[in-house]
């Protein structure tokens, strides 16, 4: 009988909890687990449907949670993601209640449930959007995951090795990923604040995968705030410790790291651009333009990639790289003039002209003044002589020493 089969499955969940079998429970609690499929197949074969799942009355909280899991799996198999999400959420809520009294062993299960919750939420939202209905399941899911995160953080377990705190960063990363998907960056900041404020073992004691992922998100958030120093630190760490085979992740890290380094004058080399065609697409044009001292080409490359860079969130940072290109052009002009320290404004105007940029003299002066004020060029401008007087020592200081605004 189908009901017997169901009871057997529910009993298994109960047994795994009693024996604290962390690995197996975390495995079978997944929506797409082999075990769940097996159970559902058996039930379907015997009953021709899943009605027994919905007719069954659970006796305990844990049984209720397990039952909701199977219901979610069933809905998932029939492609009703919205209902699947709803069932999974119920399952999760009940699990969370039980979780309050559990220790570290149950963390992988919590994590598995949260991952499925987010996965179902995304699919549900896609389904709703396709039907023209309002979306919001992922947002709902983030609230649920947040309660899971709090459960991990607020743990009064005296034995540190049994504490739930060790699940914190994995859950936090899941949450941050969801917020990024929703473009709710302000929520990320409050999450990170809560983590840093809490009494936690330090980040470097957690598994490396947790560290890399967390630092990636923290780095990108700093990047968005234009705190490029801390951003670079986190992103560099993430890149250096990211698995060599994790190509997509490395590309993502680089897409934020490269503009920061370009701002400091470090251009990505040819090997990197070959290895990561996405990076080459986004920034390759600008790199070539800088190497050739062609300001117009730089502007064109920036404009060509504008939409993609804006979607990524690095457009305004890429704009900040422009002074590097301008400096290159000015320096070329200086070198072509035989390093004469006095260079007339008109010479620079001609240089811009050579790049197909027709600027009137006031704009040329403005550009020069800006470069001097920012420290890219050492010297001064004389209005009466319409000349730039460049410093005899290092008129174009090395980029590493230029103080950025």
């Amino acid at each position: 009988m189908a009901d017997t089969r169901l009871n057997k499955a529910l009993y298994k969940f109960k047994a795994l909890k009693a024996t604290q079998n962390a690995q197996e429970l975390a495995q079978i609690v997944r929506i797409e687990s082999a075990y769940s499929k097996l159970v559902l197949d058996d039930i379907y074969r015997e009953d021709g449907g899943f009605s027994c799942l919905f007719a069954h009355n659970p006796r305990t909280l844990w049984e209720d949670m397990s039952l909701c899991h199977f219901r979610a799996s069933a809905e998932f198999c029939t492609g009703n993601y919205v209902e699947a999400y709803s069932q999974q959420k119920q399952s999760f809520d009940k699990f969370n209640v039980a979780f309050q009294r559990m220790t570290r062993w149950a963390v992988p299960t919590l994590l598995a449930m949260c991952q499925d919750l987010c996965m179902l939420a995304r699919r549900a939202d896609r389904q709703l959007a396709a039907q023209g209905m309002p979306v919001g399941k992922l947002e709902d899911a983030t609230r649920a995951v947040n309660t899971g995160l709090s459960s991990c953080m607020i743990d009064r377990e005296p034995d540190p090795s049994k504490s739930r705190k060790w699940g914190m960063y994995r859950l936090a990363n899941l949450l941050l990923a969801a917020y990024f998907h929703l473009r709710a960056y302000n929520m990320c900041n409050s999450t990170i604040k809560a983590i840093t404020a809490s009494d936690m073992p330090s980040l470097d004691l957690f598994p490396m995968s947790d560290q890399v992922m967390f630092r990636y998100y923290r780095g990108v958030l700093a990047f968005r705030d234009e705190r490029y120093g801390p951003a670079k630190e986190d992103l560099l760490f993430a890149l250096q410790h990211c698995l060599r085979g994790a190509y997509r992740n490395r590309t993502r890290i680089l897409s934020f790291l490269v503009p920061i380094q370009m701002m400091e004058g470090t251009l990505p080399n040819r090997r990197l651009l070959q290895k990561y065609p996405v990076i080459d697409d986004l920034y390759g044009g600008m790199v070539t333009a800088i190497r050739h001292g062609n300001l117009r080409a730089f502007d064109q490359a920036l404009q060509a990639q504008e939409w993609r860079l804006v979607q990524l969130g690095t457009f305004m940072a890429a704009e900040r790289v422009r002074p590097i290109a301008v400096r290159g052009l000015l320096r070329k002009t200086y070198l072509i003039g035989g390093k004469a320290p006095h260079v007339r404004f008109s010479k620079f105007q001609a240089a811009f002209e050579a790049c197909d940029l027709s600027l009137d003299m006031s704009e040329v002066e403005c550009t020069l003044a800006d470069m001097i004020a920012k420290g890219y060029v050492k010297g001064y401008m004389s209005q009466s002589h319409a000349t730039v007087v460049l410093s005899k020592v290092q008129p174009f200081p090395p980029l590493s020493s230029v103080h950025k605004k």
Partner: protein
Amino acid sequence: MTLEKNFFRLTSDPDPAKVRPLSVLRQTLKLLMKKWKAESNYTYICDQFKSLRQDLTVQHIANEFTVEVYEQHARIALETKDLGEYNQCQTQLKQLYGQGQPGKTLEFLAYRILYYVYTRNRSELNEALATMTETERFAPAVDHALRVRAAWASGNYHRFFELYRIAPNMGAFLMDHFADRERCAALRTMCKAYRPTIKISFIAHELAFGSTKKCLKFLADHSIPIIDTSDGGMAVDGKAAYPSAMAAMQKFEKVDIKGQIY
């Protein structure tokens, strides 16, 4: 029922007898616009608009007319330099446009961009850029606002003040709020770069002062010293004036509550 009504912040449920229906409110708006043109009494007009908006809110009227009300109030607030009131209207309009209500979306998108430049809110700017459609991107007012942003972001004061001079619609009123800040930044750059002096006539033109007199007043207001040049004109001594120029810039580091505390 009279068309006009003073504004009182609601502390409990409104009295239905005192709430004006939509048909009356339409007439009220016409009257208010006439009065604004004739009398230019901002305190009175703002008060009236707020009560108009309140009557719309309590009746949950969110349609083309609501949009028109907020747009008109926003424009009047801009003209009177009431940025706080403008910001309130702008926020409401963003919501209404988001719901699909028709209105002068392009005009107000341009204002929003300029407002974000004023508050230096780069993340909002990025979001605005990310969600813009092709039509919006190339609409004249929006294109102008985006070029203002680009000029501001790269420190190109020359282009910034060129754009200031040709701002469409009421953009110039918005730009007024951060023109002085950009002037101080530009002066700092000029003092750093030019030696020995920078002609006042040059500064007055580059920074769109309109007249030498206004330029001199600005420099005096910000304690920037002026010297006389040998050919009878006036100038700023780059090196001597640099500390004052820096100090003047520092004054703009914190934006007031009407904008955003940065």
